[in-house]
Every structure is written in C-alpha cells, then in structure tokens.
C-alpha cells in the first residue's frame, strides 16, 4: 500500500508544482522544465521520507525496506515518463486529434473539409520542424539543399537498428 500511496502522492505533487509554474511563467511550459519541476517535487518527497521515516508510519504505512525503495523509484519514474510523453502530445497538436476536435466543435451541422486547410499549413507543420532540426544540428542547409548533419546521423544511429530490424521507417 505504501508504494501506491507514496508514488501517487509524489506524482500529484510534481503535477501540482508543474501546473503552478506553467500558469505563472511561459518558460515553464517547455518539456525540459517539466522534468525539472518533477525532479524538484520528487527530491523533496524522497529526502523527506528518507530523513523522517516516522512520516511514513505516521500515515499508517509500513516502513520502506530497500527493495520497496527501488519499487517506489520505478513507479515514480514510470509515472513521470508517461506524463512527459503525454505532455508532448498536449503541447504539440496531434493532427488526428485536431481533426476530431474541429469536427466535434461544429456539432450536428458537420464541417466542410476546406475548413481544415486553415490548420494544415506548411507554416505549421513542415517549416517549424525544419527550423528546429537545423537549429539542433540534425540537418544543415548548403547551397539551397538540406542535408543530414552530424546530429541527425547520431539520432539515426540510435534508431537505425530498430528500424532495420522491424523494417519500419523506410522512405517511400
């Protein structure tokens, strides 16, 4: 019971801190800052539990053994990884969910496909991604042509074995 209660409490604390900071300052909406907010909340709870184990027993929970500390750490990390990936979907519009949202908002009268044109533009989809990839050194622009840069090669070196094994991600 202690792992469930403590893990969910730590996650709730991290979420509350992140929500508070996101409302307060735009910079905290960046995914990297999310990790920082959670790391801060997790560290406070972790150190608190470590230095004052009587808090755990005060909550009516069994004291944590070393293996339970590991289990709690695994639980907290999984919750954070899930929320981090989910948050990326929250700030990055998923095209599929956007289509569903736009049609739903039109209600019973439905929606003409041409209304989607305003959302699906190259300025929203392709150009910001190219700019980001160039800025991060994944691609480079030389003589008016985009080429794979060192950063991109490193990415593909990580993903390549999986793509080759599963036969996914080939162009065309």
């Amino acid at each position: 019971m202690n792992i469930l209660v403590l893990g969910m409490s730590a996650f709730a604390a991290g979420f509350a801190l992140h929500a508070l900071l996101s409302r307060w300052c735009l910079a905290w909406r960046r995914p990297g800052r999310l990790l920082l907010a959670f790391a801060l909340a997790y560290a406070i709870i972790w150190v608190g539990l470590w230095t004052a184990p009587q808090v755990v027993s005060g909550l009516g929970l069994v004291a944590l053994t070393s293996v339970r500390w590991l289990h709690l750490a695994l639980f907290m990390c999984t919750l954070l990884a899930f929320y981090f990936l989910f948050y990326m979907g929250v700030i990055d519009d998923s095209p599929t969910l956007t289509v569903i949202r736009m049609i739903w908002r039109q209600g019973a009268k439905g929606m003409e496909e041409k209304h989607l044109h305003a959302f699906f533009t190259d300025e929203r989809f392709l150009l910001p991604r190219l700019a980001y990839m160039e800025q991060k050194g994944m691609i480079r622009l030389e003589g008016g042509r985009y080429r794979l840069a060192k950063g991109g090669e490193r990415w593909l070196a990580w993903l390549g074995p999986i793509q080759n094994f599963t036969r996914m991600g080939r162009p065309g």
Partner: protein
Amino acid sequence: MIAPEALEYARLANPASAFLIYAVVQLCALHYGLAYVRAIALGFLAGLAALTLGEAWLWVPGLDSLALTLVNLIIYGLASYCFCVFMTLNVSALRIRIMVELKHRPDGMSMEELLAEYNADAIRKARIERLLANGQIVCRGGRLFLARRHLLPLVLFIDGLRLLLFGKRDL
C-alpha cells in the same frame, strides 16, 4: 515457500520482465511482417499474460499485496505506452522521416522537393483518409461528421489539461 525478501524482489522484477516480453514480442512481430497495430496488441497481451501469471504466482492474501499488484499493473501499462509512443515515432514522426529520407539522398533535398513529399496537404489528406477508412468520421453531402466518439474523451481530456496548465484550450 519463497522467502519474504525474495518475494519482494520477484514482485519488483515482475512488471519489468513483463515489459521486456511485450517489447520483444512486438519487435519480433513487426520483423515477421505483422501489421503495426496488431503487433502492438499481440505484444501487449503477451506481456499482460506474463504479468498476470507472475502476480498470481507471487500472490499473498492481503490489502498490501493487492496494492502492489495495482502498482505493477500501472507500471506495466505506462511503460508499454511509452514504448509504443517511441515505436510510433519511428513510423510517423515527420522529423525522423525527413532525416531517414535525407540519409538516403547524399545530394540532399531542396525545399521544393521536401514540400513535394511532406506538405501539409498530404498530411491532411492522409489523416482524413485514415479516419474515414476506420470509421471515426463519415462524409455526407460533402461535409464531415464524427461517427465514433471513442477518441473524443481523449480530446476533451487534453483540452481540460491545457485549460488547467495554460489557462486556454487552443494553443
């Protein structure tokens, strides 16, 4: 009879090993040509079966054991979600696709060539076709309507989260 500490370690290892089974089954299913969604489902069910068997074997009557089973189910479910997202990136993420395309073209691509392959119109058409094909939306009299509503709770949840975190639904 398993020693109590060994039992605790086994409970800790159970979701991790179930997740490994999920990942290996999904990767092998894709390698042998199973469709993407089916490979995910097959892997997830295989891992879930392993997790359930493990939990049943290691079960000790009591509330604490029940809570630990719930924790392990959550760990397995969320770790599987993360792996699934990671694998989907390999298939559909525009950035990855562009990098793979550029890797196969040593002379590079101009903006016009990139736009010819990855323009917003193509993305929109592909999404609409997919949503029409799997019955999420229907087209009647030239207008699009929502046919199935099972993605709607996710849309509303994301809108709610945006409202909570940013104070507005549309970014």
